[in-house]
């Protein structure tokens, strides 16, 4: 895609230089203390809370003229949120954009980690609605901060205990809590637990931004990220038992799409780039034969 001139009358990448510096300081602190939620002065952005105000501020503070940006929403490059945020940075920063995971230097995501393994040097920015994994048990911010400070994470296991007692298994299917570098309990934003293993020792820098809650946290490259579990109920991903109807993949995360009002269903990859790339390869293979 072509790179346009940044929008006249606006700062580069929308935010003013002071704000971006403030956010970068928060990012540095977050990277220095993996999993720790760093408070920052979240700004009003030209999109509503819940649409990615935290992620977009991180991206604005990080994006350089040489960056190539990819934006995904639930794994897809072509949904309203992804298209709008991509267009936003195209206009305000004039950067190159892409839908190819391996071409992107900066990826902003909502609810998914790309299926294509990330590379060293890439940055993955998550949009986070609720950064505090302990909020379920403890409504007071003052108290959850103490619990983090002293690593008192027993109550989090109470939630998992309750799940097993009630459902026979840990029923958390998204935003599955993790321990980062054996120290901080962290919510990996509402990614499906299917993606949790991709957090562990990822070569990419992973940054999390919560705009409404005004928190930034990070997983530096190659950090240990363990999903919480019990010794006799270890973390595991249930196989979905379907293949993508378009590309035939059985090991990617699938969306179930209702096709008509008689209940016909179709399973397709949630990662559109992964699915398209696979289909291209299949077609090339057929054409070669």
């Amino acid at each position, binding site marked *: 895609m072509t790179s346009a001139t940044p929008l006249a009358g606006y700062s580069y990448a929308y935010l003013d230089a002071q704000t971006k510096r403030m956010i970068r300081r928060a990012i540095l602190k977050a990277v220095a203390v993996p999993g720790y939620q760093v408070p920052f002065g979240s700004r009003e952005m030209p999109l509503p809370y819940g649409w990615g105000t935290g992620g977009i501020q991180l991206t604005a503070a990080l994006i350089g003229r040489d960056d190539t940006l990819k934006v995904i929403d639930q794994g897809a490059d072509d949904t309203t949120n992804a298209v709008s945020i991509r267009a936003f940075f195209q206009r305000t920063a004039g950067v190159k954009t892409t839908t190819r995971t391996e071409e992107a230097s900066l990826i902003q995501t909502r609810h998914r980690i790309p299926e294509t393994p990330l590379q060293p040097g890439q940055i993955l920015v998550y949009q986070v609605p609720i950064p505090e994994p302990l909020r379920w048990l403890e409504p007071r911010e003052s108290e959850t901060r103490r619990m983090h400070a002293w690593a008192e994470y027993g109550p989090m*296991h*109470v939630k998992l205990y309750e799940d097993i*007692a*009630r459902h026979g298994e840990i029923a958390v299917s998204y935003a599955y809590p993790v321990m980062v570098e054996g120290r901080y309990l962290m919510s990996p934003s509402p990614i499906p637990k299917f993606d949790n293993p991709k957090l562990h020792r990822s070569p990419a820098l992973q940054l999390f931004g919560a705009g409404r809650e005004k928190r930034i946290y990070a997983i530096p490259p190659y950090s240990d990220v363990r999903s919480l579990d019990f010794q006799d109920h270890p973390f595991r991903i249930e196989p979905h038992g379907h293949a993508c109807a378009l590309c035939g993949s059985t090991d990617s995360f699938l969306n179930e799409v209702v096709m008509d009002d008689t209940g016909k269903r179709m399973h397709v990859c949630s990662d559109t780039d992964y699915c398209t790339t696979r289909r291209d390869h299949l077609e090339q293979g057929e054409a070669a034969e």
Partner: protein
Amino acid sequence: MSAVLDTPLLSVRKLTHRYGSRVACRDISFDLHPGEVLAIVGESGSGKSTLLNCLSGGLPVERGVAFYRDRKGLAHDLGSLQEQDRRHLARTEWGFVRQNPRDGLRMRVSAGGNIGEPLMMVGARHYGDIRALAGDWLARVEIDPARLDDSPASFSGGMQQRLQIARNLVTAPRLVFMDEPTGGLDVSVQARLLDLLRALVADLGLAVLIVTHDLAVARLLSHRVLVMQGGDVIETGLTDQVLDDPQAPYTQLLVSSILEG
């Protein structure tokens, strides 16, 4: 061995706590030995709950000193203890039974989860073991283990209080603070709870600091009593001695005001 037993678990010297210019408790001194049950009795506003809160960490120790000796024999100054260390003591060495079980339980978590939480707080990570122990404790406090997965909200007041006791004892604490544990219960339920407490305390060799305005509770449970009035300790001694032969006029009044059946 006797030397160890003679070392007090908790030593309090000249403890004073003020709310602004009002003195809530003044120059309190006592020792609590391992396995001993000490009752603090007195009317409302006599400073007994303030004293309990100062010692259990709910309020800071501002004047006077209080030392707690842990399992390893290490003495901790409760006045200068870091919050982190105090919470560690509270998790591993202490229990706190509150008057209202709703303050001491998580009402949205099942009975099993409530008993299991202190275990998970100290690092238990085996679901089966936690659950088995929670079931054992439910039986020990005379609740049907079949109710392990029920919410405490569906329990009666007496059962909730027994559940709170199980939650506090599951980590095998050495010292349990109790604030009017039989407060909101009717008389027959009170009697049953007291029986249970007495048996558990004797079985486990617990040291207990119990605050109550009910002399019958003190007589049934405690070895020694501390009578408080207006922030001062006005009389102290063996329970039977103090209750049968009270010396201070206020204690005489308290004892004579018990309704005889």
